[in-house]
């Protein structure tokens, strides 16, 4: 059953098309993420679902009901803002109780529900504090509790972790995922952070310039980026130009038969290989030479960058620069300017059409 359905929505601000014919549906209980760089239209899409913006065209359904004409207060949503938007004049208790007071629930029920939400979000003991007396992580949890207090059909989160520092962000990310699992609430999450999107979501829609350019489960999206833009956005590093010529595919200056690789598109423009899939060695193993699983190149080591447990090795192969990521203790065997063999599994070479 659909929790949220967005059909062909478009939104313009003046001459700028913020959202361009966007459609997707989110299953009930699903954690769905809109991922993209700043200005790609993800927040506008979320605000259209919430009712804060009216689409120029298209339809929005929540729980199977067309809600285009409903103002935000009539839609069964919970919205968590990037800046939390907690009410500064109310205590934590009163912030969470706010939607229940609107519904004119009895005082006993309000107390009971606020107590259960304080427990769920690990906020016990903070109920009498004001938002200014809370840390960023605590404010974020109060904002979540307040959004859930309305018993929404869908929880909408607009970059809720972006104001937190890195360590707290990791902690709250886990808590958020656990909370969503526990409550089973349909969630639409907006972020520009790939790590957040991949670790939290059941499915991700990647947006660019108002359009959805990819929509898939995190693992599929990561394993098979369809375009160079998406690969770059997903922080793929080795994106190099490539082409198909006379039944052969050109990879890093060498040509291979097309049938050696699974599904090479005819309109190929780029290839990409994840740095961790690029292996290096001073001497090539006989087994690898004989194996049809690998393609082998000869290159020269140009640079290395230390990243703690891993080190990036920069290698030039026939004028192309590629990056290999290897464990730091292995990197010590390689010296700048040395010749190295580079070998890659054929299935780790990803072909990109645009």
């Amino acid at each position, binding site marked *: 059953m659909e929790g949220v359905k967005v059909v062909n929505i478009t939104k313009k601000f003046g001459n700028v098309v913020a959202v361009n014919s966007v459609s997707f549906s989110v299953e009930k209980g699903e954690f769905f993420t809109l991922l993209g760089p700043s200005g790609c239209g993800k927040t506008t899409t979320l605000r259209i679902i919430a009712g804060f913006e*009216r689409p120029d065209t298209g339809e929005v359904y929540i729980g199977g009901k067309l809600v285009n004409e409903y103002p935000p207060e009539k839609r069964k949503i919970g919205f968590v*803002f990037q800046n939390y938007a907690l*009410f500064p004049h109310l205590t934590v208790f009163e912030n969470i109780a706010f939607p229940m007071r609107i519904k004119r629930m009895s005082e006993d029920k309000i107390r009971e529900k606020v107590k259960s939400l304080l427990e769920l979000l690990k906020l016990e003991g903070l109920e009498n504090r004001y938002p*200014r007396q809370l840390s960023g992580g605590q404010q974020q949890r109060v904002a979540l509790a307040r959004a859930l*207090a*309305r018993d929404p059909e869908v929880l909408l989160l607009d970059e809720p972790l972006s104001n937190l520092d890195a360590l707290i962000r990791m902690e709250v990310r886990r808590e958020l995922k656990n909370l969503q699992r526990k409550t089973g609430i349909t969630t639409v999450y907006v972020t520009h952070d790939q790590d957040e999107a991949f670790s939290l979501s059941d499915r991700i829609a990647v947006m660019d310039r108002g359009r959805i350019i990819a929509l898939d489960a995190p693992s599929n999206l990561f394993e098979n980026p369809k375009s160079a833009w998406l690969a770059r956005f997903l922080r793929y590093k080795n994106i190099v130009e490539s082409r198909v010529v006379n039944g052969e595919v050109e990879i890093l200056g060498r040509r291979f038969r097309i049938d050696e690789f699974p599904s090479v598109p005819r309109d190929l423009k780029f290839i990409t290989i994840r740095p961790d899939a690029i292996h290096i060695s001073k001497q090539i193993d006989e087994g690898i030479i004989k194996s049809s699983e690998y393609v082998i190149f000869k290159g020269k080591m140009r640079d290395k960058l230390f990243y703690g447990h891993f080190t990036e090795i920069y290698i030039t192969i026939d004028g192309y620069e590629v990056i290999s990521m290897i464990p730091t203790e292995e990197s010590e065997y390689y010296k700048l300017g040395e010749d190295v063999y580079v070998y890659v599994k054929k299935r780790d070479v990803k072909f990109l059409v645009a």
Partner: protein
Amino acid sequence: MSIIDVLYRILKVVIYLAIALTLLYISLLSFSPVIGAFALKWHYTLLPEVWTLDNFKFIFSDPFIIRSLESSVLVAFTTSLSSLVIYLLVILFMHYKEQRGWINTLFEIVVIIPLMIPAILLALSMYELYRPTAIGGTFLILVFAHITIVSPYVYRNLYSVSKIIDMKSLIEASRSLGAGLFTTLFKVILPNIYHGLLGAFLLSFAISFGDFEIANILAPWQYRTVTIAIFQYSFKNIWIASAIISIVIFVSVTATFSVAYISRKAIAKYTEVTR
């Protein structure tokens, strides 16, 4: 000590002296009427030759001055309250509805117009515009004119407060939690902007209370304001006029310091919230 150090010290002394003289000049201008308010005789001396409280006693026993004080309070209060309601609704509309940049831009331009037009022109235009209508000849015409001249101050004050508290987010949060316009206004917005409202009210009260140019043209005879009384008494008895001026100064200074204090408290409160 090098020549640079000597020059630097001389420059420092000159700057301090200039600041002190400026402050002294402003204080003398502002407060000499206050000293005059206690004078019975003051001709060729630095301070009054004979001191008295009779000027104040006269003020509070003269029906014309009392009525002018009442009129000024009535006009200033009505102006301040009306402009607050008008601009609160404007600001609320801007944040409540979908954001439309052109409305903000339009208001930014419209509200500064009274600062560019001389008050006398504004008063004459309003006189011509409203003379044939029902409000011509009533105190409302003065209130309308004063709402216009206080607009830049009230609008800017409320707009700044709305930005400090991020009114847009608070309104959206309230709506996403199921609250309608009135609940949002009374339970979320007003409790968070009362500092700004009070500041804007006091500022607009002080401006309206101290206006002479517009009141002199537009005020009907039964609503002559305190500044008109000052003007008229300045020809009859300058010390009584000074006593009335000192009341206006007291109102303006109290309002100014209150605005400064309230603004500082509000900014401290909300910067702590948003930190």
